[in-house]
């Protein structure tokens, strides 16, 4: 089969690889009909996530048709079923899964020993996201083996297109969870840093969950126009002071809820000197992430507010104003998404036409064009926001 394979920094290729096979009774194989490139795939592209090996297959946003099931799937899935695969693999039986904390499933990480040493305690297995999260081959491929397939799936009813439901596997529930964990009140202002795909989903989620005011921060005009379409007031950080504008929009009090949909690779510019400092420390491996957005959020957030972090961070950060955060009584909420905790509700909302996540797709291409689409997405060429690949 064909698959997008990681070979090193900025080096992804469309290779011919051997087909996946059923290994465990609870496995299923799907024929991928649609997959997408995620903003967090760019962290792998830039080699900021440790423990990638040349030859690893990329991709954690995918859906398709079941073509083979193992003996232990027990009727939960059958050949021909159409499913979206959540990026977090979960067993459904461990204590964490029973509590709905699927992204920290205790059993699905097959490199648990290594992850235990690095993280203290291992987290769930993820598709196509380094060997710290199980080293599972990803779904930017023609076929995918889904471990724990009897639980790790979202069944899709007829009548909905791939484009409508594909993002149920990651970015839609990711934006949703980020807003949900803010515990939105009808009087709240939610400020969202980053208008990439997750930021866009978070904006719509905040509207659906009844925030009074949603403010979105970015510098790319096309992304800001999309944010505005979703109901956000926008701030272009290259043209105006984020902190001044946020205070203006909240009677000087700051937003109650701040959401970081940017993650470890904050935009580097000379006007934000701390980003250059962080980039330099990253290079000499004294710091792995650039937390410019976190610093800004902690500073501007209303006291007793919530900082929600759906953006991916990989390791160590530096110069975190913890004293400000402590004295202001801020609450931090973060984590990989417990996809299946939200997916039924979100699928209903899509079926009822409350929301159609396909609005975010700006580019569709074949798997062979995938490597170049990484460049297009990274450079935001041609107003690119979200790329869908059709294997």
């Amino acid at each position, binding site marked *: 089969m064909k698959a997008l*394979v990681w*070979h090193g920094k*900025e*080096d992804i*290729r*469309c*290779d*011919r690889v*051997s*087909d*996946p096979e059923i290994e465990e009774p609870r496995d299923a194989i799907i024929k991928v009909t649609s997959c997408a490139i995620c903003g967090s795939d760019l962290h792998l*592209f*830039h080699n900021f996530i*440790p*423990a990638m*090996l040349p*030859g*690893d*297959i990329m991709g954690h946003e995918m859906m398709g048709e079941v073509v083979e099931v193992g003996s232990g799937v027990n009727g939960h899935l059958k050949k021909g079923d159409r499913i979206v695969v959540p990026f977090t693999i979960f067993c459904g039986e461990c204590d964490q899964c029973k509590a709905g904390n699927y992204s920290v499933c205790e059993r699905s990480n097959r490199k648990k020993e*290594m992850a235990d040493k690095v993280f203290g305690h291992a987290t769930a297995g993820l598709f196509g996201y380094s*060997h710290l999260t199980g*080293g599972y*081959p990803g779904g930017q491929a023609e076929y995918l083996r889904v471990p724990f397939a009897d639980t790790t799936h979202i*069944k899709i009813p007829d009548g909905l297109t791939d484009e409508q439901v594909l993002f149920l596997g990651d970015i839609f529930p990711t934006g949703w969870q980020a807003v949900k964990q803010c515990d939105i009140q*009808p009087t709240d202002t939610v400020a969202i840093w980053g208008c990439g795909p997750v930021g866009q989903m978070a904006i*719509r989620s905040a*509207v*659906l*969950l*009844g925030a009074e005011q949603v403010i979105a921060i970015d510098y790319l*005009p*096309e*992304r800001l*126009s999309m944010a505005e*379409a*979703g*109901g956000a007031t926008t701030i272009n950080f290259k043209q105006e002071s984020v902190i001044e504008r946020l205070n203006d929009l909240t009677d000087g009090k700051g937003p109650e809820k701040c959401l970081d949909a940017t993650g470890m690779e904050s*935009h*580097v510019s*000379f006007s934000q000197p701390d980003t*250059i400092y962080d*980039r*330099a420390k990253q290079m000499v491996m004294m710091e792995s992430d650039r937390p410019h957005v976190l610093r800004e959020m902690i500073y501007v957030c209303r006291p007793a507010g919530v900082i929600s972090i759906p953006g991916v961070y990989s390791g160590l950060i530096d110069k975190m104003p913890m004293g400000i955060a402590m004295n202001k009584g801020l609450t931090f909420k973060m984590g990989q998404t417990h996809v299946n905790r*939200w997916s*039924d*509700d979100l*699928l*209903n909302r899509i079926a009822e*036409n*409350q*929301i*159609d996540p396909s*609005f*975010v797709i*700006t580019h569709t291409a074949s798997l062979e064009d995938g*490597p170049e689409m990484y*460049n297009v997405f*990274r450079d935001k060429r*041609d*107003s690119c926001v979200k790329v869908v690949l059709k294997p």
Partner: protein
Amino acid sequence: MNILTNITRMPSDPKIIETGRSSAHPIDTLSRGLAWFGICLGTLELLAPRRIGRALGVESPTAYALIRFFGAREIAAGVVTLSTEKKLGLWSRVAGDVMDIAALTAALMPYNRRRQNVGPALIAVLGVTALDLFAAGQVTQRSRRKGEAKNYSGRTGFPNGTALSRNRANIAASTRQVEPAATSHRH
């Protein structure tokens, strides 16, 4: 780090049979090379300004301070070039090259006892400048947006309109109806 070096792929995972074209462009490799060259040179300038000043026949506290400043500038530009803001980094390298050329030309004066060293240095800088210009031009060309930024103001994501979704949320909030529990008849 020892733990990380022990990682291996599972024997049953798909293996590469035939490899395809890479997403990497030669220009990325060139940019990385230039960035590291700048960082090495910058470190040298920052740590040994006297030695460099003496070799070029400029021996004054002002000259040493200037060399140090140039070193810091080289490092900063290199760091930015290695980041995702490659274009900004490469153009700041070009700007730095112009400063280097200006400084070296000034050092080419007849009274400088070490003129014979300045000439080759100037030629080297001109060579690097050509590479920087080429890389910066290529990267700019590549990232140039075709036409204006697109306007996505039609992409609301709400098939029934933003106002209706907002309304529904307000009604849900006022009647304290939290969204339906995560059990669904569809599953």
